[in-house]
Each structure stands twice: as structure tokens, then as C-alpha cells.
């Protein structure tokens, strides 16, 4: 198959092939649906211009949703205004200012790019879970002190 390139990231020079775009947006669409995005829903997308933005927009459309883009460089008030105006339930963003601005909105779920890519890191085991719990009973002091 030919490696048809659909985007070049101006900053990094990295290329996104058509195949990668198709694959990534298919995964992202499933993730959006799992979080309840349905036909006709507005989804906020606040990401820097680049491959992630393209994937996110494609995925929202494929999920039947309406893309509501928000520029990343707006000030806090501007972000808040755009976010509230959308009435969206879901926002795709990694931008700290946008995450903060979403606090006072009706956004229920914020998805990071990692989550959009279906990465759902799960610990199979964590140190503290496999060892036995000798939890200090109620902060109890050492017996020897009594």
C-alpha cells in the first residue's frame, strides 16, 4: 500500500499517513461513543493545530457529532465563554487553561489525547495491593510504649 501522507506537523516535521489517520480516528470514535457521544451531540475540541486535532475532528464527525473548535490561545474568559456557549457534554483537550475553564461549564467528561487514542493505562498489580495490610490500627502507637 502506498503511504499516502495527509498532514505534516509544522513544528516537529512528523507526518501523518492516511492509514494512520483512518486507524486513529476509528479508535477515537469508539472511545467517544463509550463516553456517551451520540449523533447530533456537540463536542468541544481544544487542541493545538496538528495531527491530534485532525484525528479528533474526524472522530467526532464519525461518531455523528458536531465539532465545536476552541482556539487554544484564547484567554481564560474567552475560553470560558466559548465552552459555556457550546453546551457540550464532552470536551477533547489537554490544554490546562481549557480544563480549568470547563469547571464552570456543563462539560461532563474531558478526554485527553491519550484517552482518545484508546490508551487506558491500567495497573495490573501495584506494590501496595499485593502485600498484606498491617495498617497501623487507627494510628496506634507502638505497643512497647505502653
Amino acid at each position, binding site marked *: *500500500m502506498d503511504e*499516502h501522507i495527509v498532514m505534516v506537523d509544522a513544528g516537529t516535521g512528523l507526518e501523518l499517513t*492516511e*492509514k494512520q489517520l*483512518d*486507524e486513529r*480516528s*476509528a*479508535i477515537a*470514535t*469508539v472511545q467517544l*461513543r*463509550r*463516553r*456517551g457521544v451520540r449523533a447530533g451531540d456537540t463536542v468541544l475540541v481544544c487542541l493545538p493545530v496538528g495531527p491530534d486535532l485532525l484525528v479528533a475532528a*474526524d*472522530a467526532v*464527525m*464519525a*461518531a*455523528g457529532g458536531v465539532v465545536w473548535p476552541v482556539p487554544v490561545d484564547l484567554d481564560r474568559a474567552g475560553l470560558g465563554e466559548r465552552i459555556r456557549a457550546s453546551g457540550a457534554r464532552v470536551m477533547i483537550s489537554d490544554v490546562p487553561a481549557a480544563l480549568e475553564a*470547563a*469547571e*464552570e*461549564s*456543563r*462539560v*461532563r*467528561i*474531558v478526554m485527553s489525547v491519550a484517552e482518545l487514542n*484508546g490508551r*487506558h*493505562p*491500567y*495497573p*495490573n*498489580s*501495584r506494590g*501496595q*495491593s*499485593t502485600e*498484606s*495490610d*498491617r*495498617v*497501623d*490500627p*487507627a*494510628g*496506634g*502507637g507502638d*505497643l512497647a*510504649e*505502653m
Partner: protein
Amino acid sequence: MTPPVPHNLPAEPNRFVGRGRDLIELSTLVHDERVVTLSGIGGIGKTRLSLRVAARAAPGFADGVWLVELARVADPALIVNEIAGVLGVRDEAPGRLLDGLRVRLREARALIVLDNCEHLVDRCAELVAGLIADCPELRFLLTSREPLHIPGELVWRVPPLELPDDHHPDAESVLLFVERALAAGARSVTGSMDDVVRLCRALDGLPLALELAAARTSLMSPGRIADRIGDRFTLLTRGDRTAPARQRTLLATVEWSHDLLRPKERVLLRRLSVFAGLFDLAVAERVCADGGIVRRAELLDLLSGLVDKSLVLHHDGRYRLLETIRQYAAERLAEAGELTRLRDRHLRVICEEMEFCYQAGALDPRMPWPARVPHFARGRALMDDCRAAVERAVESADPVLGLRLARAALAILAVRGELGETVGWHRRLLALDLSRVPSDVVAVAKGGLAYGLEICDELARAEELVVQGVEEQKRHPYTHWLGVTYSVALAVFFRTGQSEKALRYLEELEAAATAHDDPFNLATVRIAQLNLALFRGQLRQARRRGEEALALAREAGHHWTLARALTHLGAVAEAAGDLEAAVTCHTSALPLLEDMGNRVELARCQAKLGRVSARMHDYPAARLHLAASLALSTRTGQRRGVVRALMAMSALAGEQGDLEGAVLAAAAATALREAIGQYGVPGPVQELLTRARGGLGEGRVSLLWAKGARQSPEEVARRVLDPGQAVPAGGPRPVNGSWQSGLTGRELEIAALLTGGLSNRAIALKLVISPATVARHVANIMEKLGFASRAQIAVWATEHGLESHPT
């Protein structure tokens, strides 16, 4: 019909309004995601929403939906206790609750709702992450102002209710306000809808704010409330002015509602914040009335006034404060300079209440059991307040009331076999300066701590403490406690093989209990004598002592002693080979233990019945008893109990000539014993192995041993208790993807094209549809087949003979 899902969700106090789509989505999410956190400010409705979601999602959780309220838990170390308490997991040995929780939840398909995590985020994060890693079917739904920030947590931000606009004048917020206003007896609310809309907007759709405002509509019109609250925002006196708007709106509303209270109501509200959770009128009167500002006789009126204003919730004769209100009230209490005084009063009242429950339920040497039960139940209901009171005793370095409280609590909790938490209390309180504590109180407390240490096998330290406890108490007039302390000493001496010392204490206790007409402790003496005789092989003597114990227990009317006498007599009968009598004794103990809710002893009793039934070749009965025993021990998280059930299963299989099953069960039991630090292979297992090697061959036995050691107790039980089902039911699950995959014609067509490696754009050209439509179909296929990439579709399509036909 599927059986009803077990749960502890409270009945809803009033109608739930709005959030229709959120409920539908969240009920699905709590199945798909392992941890869902509902986040948002206090008063936005997280708790209410979580309860609704949990109830809606319940049918998918066969092992239950469990609400654990954390608001009243101050100490992060006690979160485990709280969860264990709700799930019925008992302390195997103090401090081992988390292990018990894992036993309980390992195979459970359950949803745990942790409500109000914000003040315990770190420990919650650690616990939740650990439990989901160990328990694959477990799900969590959390409410917290702050997310836990653990991998895989889905943070779901709870928004306020929808606000009305020109197109939707009947938005959620309006519906809630009108509903509550009508319930509060307002008549004219619907006549001034413009004002209602204005008020809902002013309150930002915040449910708690709407409820507080609606509770006032019987006296004040919505328009006036809107004006008043509008003024508040500019005059907000307390709190952070830079806090988010919603938080300020809520605080302003709470403050407005508070300031409208009569002065006495305000005093009561702030004082009620010292209660840890639910409280009743009697305790509220004792803690909050002072004879001056708030008199006892007017407390009910004041309390009802607060209920009418939605500041206090009332159900089933008990009251509570919503967490957001409780925090506000606690701040007012501190501001008024009453915090210390109220907490001290709370400590004293709770101590006296617990002592009363203990005395009423246990002190009368002859009292029918049904007359005792309500007092024990009332004592258990005070546990949350006990915890807060002990906290105060430790903080104020005043151990006397704390130790008296712990002593009473110990007696009440021992009936159900739940000592765990009081051990920690004793430990902390005994670590304080005891110079001003009466020496008999200290002596009893030492016995109490020794009780807990004996259970967790710290025998040397237990012995030291309990001997001090007995010797000191002997210098004071006889009390019931002396008998209890003696019995702990006896247990320690027996276990450490010091029969001389045991005998001496036994004689002392016998003399004291006889002289002071204490049938409860005299029965303890008889049971200890039975044990001693049984140990020495004097079976007739043992039986006689058991019968005396039984008669004393009947006389005292204490079911706990009665059950102990019966199970000990059963053990004697079994040793004497009188299996019928053993069954009779154990069977009579069952309903007593069940009634007391002592499920740890119940599991032990069921295991014994299983073992005896197996020896009598009554296999169907043996299977029933052993299945019940295993289930009880799993649900209470008792690994020793699970070991006991497995060993009895091994014996059952052996009796039936099923050597393979016997080896499997023994191997599983031995592996679990090692996991809890008990090493070595017990005699009966070694005998079994010798027999099995003769019958099955060395190689086969090692293979079975290795297999059994890896299997879960449930798997082994399925194999041994239901020999027809050597293979797990159902067999391997069919892999997703058959012709019944539910794909449409168009989707199958696209799946076929993907085998040729075509891009969405290429497929779109081929099928003359848009690339976005292709993408939607691809996502549909992935969802239906549970795939995570396009490549998987291609593989699946090829395997199912779907080929692209290049044209």
C-alpha cells in the same frame, strides 16, 4: 427472573428530578469503566446522582451494590473498616481487614459507591487502585470534590441542573424548585413563573440552593427570595471571594437560609454538627440542650423547624445533616467558641449511652435474650459517634471516658465477633497518660487489649497485659469484667500450654463467679473445664461440664454463651464418636448464631456440621453445610474460615472415595494457610497424601497438589461439592464474531473491503458514500465486535471468509 441484587442503598427521601440522559449514560459507564468519579462542588448533587445511578445499574451487579459513606470518617486508616463494615467483612485479626476485603471481592461482580472522598483522596486512591488490580469484576463509583487521579479513573463532572431559557421554560431546575416548593406547602409558586425562572438563574441551577430556597416558599414569594439572595452575592461575608461562582452562589444561599433561622435554631444547627452521622432525638437532647439557650423540652420543635427548612434530614425516627450543611454548621460552632465544649459533652453522652446499652443488655445475670437484643442493636447504631468520641478522648488526652466507652463497646461488639476496632481504641487510649485514671478502669482496659492481641496471636504481650489486668482487678470488688479478663487469660494460658497457671486461674474464677452469682462467667468456667477434660481425653467429664455450662447459659438467657456451650458439647460428642448427638448440638447452635449475626462462628459451626455429616455418610447434607460455610467465610473475608471449609471438603471427598478431590482441596487449603503465615503440613493432610500416593501414584498426586494449590477456593468447591461438574460450566466462551455478529449488510461489505487494506477514502470512492460515513460504519463494526483497531476487523473478515472482490 434474576434474583434481586443485594444492596444497602437508602430509600429516596423525595422525588428525584431531571438528569435523565446523565442517568442513562452513567449507568452504562459504571459497567464499562472500572472507576467513575462524580466530581463537583458540595451541593451540586453528586451524592443523590450517585445513588440514582447505583440503583439503576444494580441489575448488572450480581454481588451487590454497596454504599460506603466516608463523610464521617476522619482517619484515612479507617476507610477499610468502613468498607468492610458495609460488606460484612470481619476482622480475621485486628489490622488484617484489607486481606479480608480481597477475599470477599476477588470474584465478586459488585459496585462500591464511595461517597464524599474529598478529605481522604490519597488513601482512597491507593485503596481503589489496589482493589481493582486484585478484583477483576469490581467497579467503583465515587463522589468527590477532587478526583483521585489514578490511572483509568473516568472523571465525570456533575453540572448544575439545566437553566430555563425562552425555549425551555420548564428546565430541570424549575421542575425541581416547583416540586419542592409544592411539597413545602407553597400554593402560589406556579402563579409567578417569571420570578421562579429568575430565581433558578440566580441560584445557578444548584440543587441544594434550590432546595433551601424552595423550603422557604410557604412564607416568602420566589420573587422576594430572588431579590434577597441577589443582595447576598454582593454582601457575601464569609468564604473566599475568589472561589468559583458556583461555590459562592451556594455559600450565599446556605448563609441566607441560616440567617433566616431563629437564634435558637441557629444554636441547635451548629451544635448538631458534632454528630458523626445519624442521630436520634434522645441523644440530640442530651448533647445539644444546655438548660439555658436551648432547653430540652423545646428541642423537638427546633429540630422539626430545621427539617422543614431542609437543613436537617429526617428518616425513620433518626436525623442527619447533609455533608455541605454539616461543614457550614461546624464552622459556625467553632466561630461561636463552642467546639471544645460540645465535643466534650458528645464524648460524655456517648460514653454514658454505650454504658447504658451494655448494662441494660448484659448486666442482669438472668434476662431473656429478646430483652437484651434491642440494647445491643442500639449500641451498634452508635458506632460512628463512638469513633468520633474516642477521637476526642485521645485529642484531649482524657482517657477515662474513652476507656469506659471502649469497655462497653467491646462487650457489645463481642456478641457478633467484631472486636477489631476496639483493639485500636484500647491501644491508643492506653498510650495516654494514665496517672489520673482509676486503676480498675486501666486493669479492665488491659484485659480488653489482651483480648484483641490473643486473636492476632501476639500471645506473649497478651499474657503480660492480661495478668496485670487480673491481678489489679482482684484488689477491687468483683465485677463482670473480672470474669471476662480471666477468660482471656485462660485462653492465653491454654494456647501457650501453661496448664498449671490456667488451672489456678480457673479455680479463682470459679470461686469468684460462684460467690457473686455470675452465671455468665460461671458458664465460661465450665466451658474451659470442658476443654481441659477434652484435651486430657476425659470425655465423660467433658460432657458433664458441657451440660452444666448449657444449664447455666439457659439460666442466664445469654445466647452467646448458649451457642458456645452447644458447639463445645458438639465437639465432645464428635470426639466420643456419637455423631448423631454432635449433629444435634451444632444444629441447635445455628439459629442462635444466625440471630446474633455472628457469621464467623456460624461459618465454623457449618464446617463442623459438614465434617460430621460426611463421617455419617450423609453426603448431600455435608455438601450443603460446606457450601454454606465457604460462602460465609468468603463473604466475611475470613481466610482461616476458608481453610477450615476446604479441609472439611477434603475430608468429605476422602469419605466418598474421591481421592483426587481430596488432594485438590487439601492442596488449596495448604496454599492458603501458607499465605496467612501458617507453615507446615498438618497430620491429616500427610495421611491423606500417603493414602493418595498408594491409590493414584506419586506423579498424579504431585500434579493434583500443584493444581489444587493454584486453584481458587471456589473452583475447588465446584469440583468437590458437585462432582458432576469437573469442567467449569459452559466451557470456553465463544469468541466474538460469528455470523450472528449483528453486522448489517453495509457493515459486512465494508469489513470485506478492509481485508484489501483500503483507506476510508478509497472505500468511500468505491461505495460512493462520504469518508465520514465510512468512518462511522468502521466505528460501528468495532463497537459491535469489541475490537480496538481496524486491523482486527480485517483479520476477522478474512477468518470468516469475507473477501474484497477487486473489480
